[in-house]
């Protein structure tokens, strides 16, 4: 299954909150605190487990009036990094 069809959601070990449009993430397992930029924060905010990666891309294309191909590349790269850092997990099915 392609990442586009998967459903990103926060990793159970990660706590995050959006403050003034920026996501503050506490990564408990590595004792790190990170702040995402505006677009990263928006992706994190949309990663609820009910939106697929493709849904998130569509939302960003609309909100930023951007190029679909470029945003797809950015979003998938961002999510892969977030998965690698245990910030996001990808599910095959939407969260209930």
């Amino acid at each position, binding site marked *: 299954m392609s990442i586009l069809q998967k459903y990103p959601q926060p990793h159970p*070990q990660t*706590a995050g*909150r959006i*403050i*003034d*449009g*920026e996501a*503050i993430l*506490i990564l*408990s397992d590595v*004792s790190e*605190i*990170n*702040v995402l930029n505006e677009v990263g924060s928006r992706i994190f905010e949309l990663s609820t487990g009910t939106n697929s990666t493709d849904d998130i891309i569509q939302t960003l294309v609309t909100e930023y009036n951007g190029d679909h191909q470029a945003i797809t590349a950015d979003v998938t790269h961002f999510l892969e990094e977030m998965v690698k850092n245990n910030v996001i997990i990808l599910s095959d099915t939407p969260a209930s």
Partner: protein
Amino acid sequence: MNNGSSPLTIPLTIANLPLLLQGTDEAVIARLRQRYQDFLAPEPIDPLFTVDINVIPDAIFVEPKPGPWVIESTYTADSMTYRSYVSQSRLDLKTKRGQLDMAPDASIENFLRVTYAWLCLQHDGLLLHSAGIIRNELGYVFFGPSGAGKTTTTRISAKLGTVVSDDLVIIRRLNGQYHLFGVPFRGDLADEAPRTNSVAPLKAIFRLRQDYHHEVAPLPRSMGIAELLAAAPFVSDKRALTPQLISVCTDIARHVPLQSLHFKRDDGFWKVIDEHFTEISTTTPANSR
């Protein structure tokens, strides 16, 4: 040993959060009462927790080995535990009772740090790795990681105000306003920062940045909150506590000016702090913050 039927007590109050320690070993209780005399509450108190001290000769709970000082703590819905080399504790969150096992000559400093880090979070407060100064009856907090300049700013400020701490303070909301509270924990300046049991309304919090000039600079709120989170010892790495920790830090950032302070090694930073707030008070209508 105490032959009486009632235990000997150490009624502590730190940041208005009462904790009753009690035990039967007269020498240990006397030593701890002496050590924390400035933070003893007038008896009787209505403690948040009552902790029985169990003195165990030759107790070792963590085998010493090279590396960082070991302080282990866990928090669940039912209990809070702490363990270090010669002391360990377990607090039952439902019964509000606990037990502290310790060697006769053990310090309870880390037990108190861990316990109060958690207690503060539960009571609209934060134990913060920071320096605290009371100047003109207002509290100022200077924070940042080790090496950021907490001890330096404290040393520089010693003649200009009351040093609350160069290492740890408590920020806590009381009667709708955040206050700076002193704590009995030692930092690097054991003599110059005498661990005073002081309290003052909190005027501002500064993230320290060593520089070649003095300047109060904006700190984006999200970054400020993240910096506060990172400076909360014992709780920032505990997943179960992070929602509450984020809430407390967010609320602090909403109610207290939180900015960067660029500074060099002289007391000129106080001038720019005073000028900064004078400027704000003359240009900003009341309650518009």
